[in-house]
């Protein structure tokens, strides 16, 4: 059940250039159902940054009532968030949305997890959950450069991990789709989160496997009321049918919605 809670910051550190890892503690963690869900953070109690920020869950520890978020400092809200200290409390609305279907991969099967930039974090929580279910996980992670890359070791501890970067400063030079092709990576199911061009490229290049994509859009309410984050469906691409990324998603099966 989604709720609003002032969660306490347990850990907050910079893990790459402008990339922060934030661990929060609170009861809300018990309600998290699946990887790919997100939380909606209110950075200030004042009016400087009014609207909440949607941030994905990179890790969840229900026993310790802790969840970890990884975000990039992008604008005013995330800049202010990055200044918060251990012990501070953050107003969190969540958990929100529908995540990655773990049941799409069966025990003993193989899953390929493809992430780009700040789309990488939810795949860590997903990978841990899949591994726990006896699924072999392989990761392909794309970053702009080595300066903004993170969690390489964490992913390697779970399964084979390939890196790609736009400038070649870490892993192979190029895009995640280049790596998949070059390494001939096959899987029973593919899960992805990252920039829309990456998701589009995957939809085109991996038509034969079940593919699940986590989408991103500017949101206001995060619960399906404001209609800010809607997208067209592929069966009615010009019409009035739609899906809400915050409520029906953020994870959709490839072919379900039109990628912006």
């Amino acid at each position, binding site marked *: *059940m989604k709720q609003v809670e002032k969660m306490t910051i347990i850990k907050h550190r910079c893990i790459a250039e402008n990339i922060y890892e934030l661990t929060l503690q609170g009861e809300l963690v018990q309600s998290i159902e699946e990887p790919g869900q997100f939380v909606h953070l*209110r950075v200030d109690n004042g009016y400087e940054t*009014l*609207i909440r920020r949607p941030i994905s869950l990179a890790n969840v520890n229900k026993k310790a009532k802790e969840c970890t978020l990884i975000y990039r400092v992008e604008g005013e809200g995330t800049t202010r968030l990055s200044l918060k200290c251990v012990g501070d409390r953050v107003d969190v609305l969540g958990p929100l949305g529908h995540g990655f279907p773990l049941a799409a991969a069966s025990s003993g099967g193989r899953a390929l997890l493809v992430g780009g930039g700040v789309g990488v974090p939810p795949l860590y929580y997903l990978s841990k959950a899949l591994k726990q279910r006896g699924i072999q996980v392989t990761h392909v992670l794309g970053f702009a450069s080595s300066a903004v890359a993170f969690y390489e070791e964490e992913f390697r501890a779970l399964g084979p991990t390939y890196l790609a970067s736009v400038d070649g400063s870490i892993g192979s030079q190029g895009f995640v789709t280049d790596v998949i092709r070059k390494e001939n990576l096959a899987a029973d199911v593919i899960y992805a989160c990252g920039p829309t061009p990456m998701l589009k490229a995957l939809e085109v290049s991996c038509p034969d496997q079940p593919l699940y994509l986590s989408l991103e859009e500017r949101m*206001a309410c995060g619960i399906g009321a404001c209609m800010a984050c*809607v997208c067209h469906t592929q069966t009615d691409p010009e019409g*009035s049918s739609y899906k809400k990324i915050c409520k029906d998603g953020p994870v959709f099966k490839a072919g379900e919605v039109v990628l912006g």
Partner: protein
Amino acid sequence: MNETTEVSLKVDLPGLPMKNPIMPASGCFAFGQEYADFYDLNQLGAIAIKAATREPRFGNPTPRVAETRAGMLNAIGLQNPGVDHIMAHELRWLERYETPILANIAGSTIEDYLYVAEKLSQDARVGALELNISCPNVKEGGIAFGTVPDVAASLTEKVKAVSEKPVYVKLSPNIADIVTMAKAVEQAGADGLSMINTLLGMRMDIKTMKPILANKMGGLSGPAIKPVAIRMIYQVSQAVSIPIIGMGGIQSVDDCLEFLMAGASAVAIGTANFVDPFICPKIIADLPQRLEALKLSTIEDLVGRSWKTCVTV
């Protein structure tokens, strides 16, 4: 004044017998279902549901929202499933609650408005209509009817003629003289006013050097517009005799009191629902204590207090 008198939050508006003066604003609450996950909607004074149009509308491309200092811009574009769907599904779902419904209607032609108004006004679940002539985000309609007093008055008159329920007209702040507009729609038969809709605004993306919103322009809401709303309600409430539902950046019980003092008879909460899903019940819970502190026993006592001749209590 009798110190032991219970504070009454009741507000009786045309078509809307409200147990308190708080309602969520149209477009900021969808049709209530998302917020019913958080609290019992029977706590609300009324519910203004999202605008209905004749045909289903997808609305504008995304991005549809952008944050601003103490506010936000939106250009949703009146996305809704169409009046038939709303009457068959959303309003039927709302039958589980007793809260009066203010049904917002929009259109791009007079015929569209009349079609939607006639249908919705016949729905037993609808208490009153809110005529949206002030949506800044739809090219061909909405605001086209809301900037010229004669045009707004003519539409109001026609909608009144087909409607079986009271009609509130939602006014745009994007005009030079709000009082002339308010008087024109009052004369045309409006039973009440809703004010204000959003202020037309823009933001640029520093990286792309283009507008952030796909629609380029959008409606500004949130605390940033509160003083504009209060000023307009102060002016209009002294010039008309129909009740005003006040809105524009309300975030707290004291914001709500300011609107009432300015001349609103009830208030609507918009953007704040996105920040705090519990904002409406929180303000309702805070009201009795604030009224008591001000030595007031009814909401009515506060309406227009800023300009009414002071009555000794």
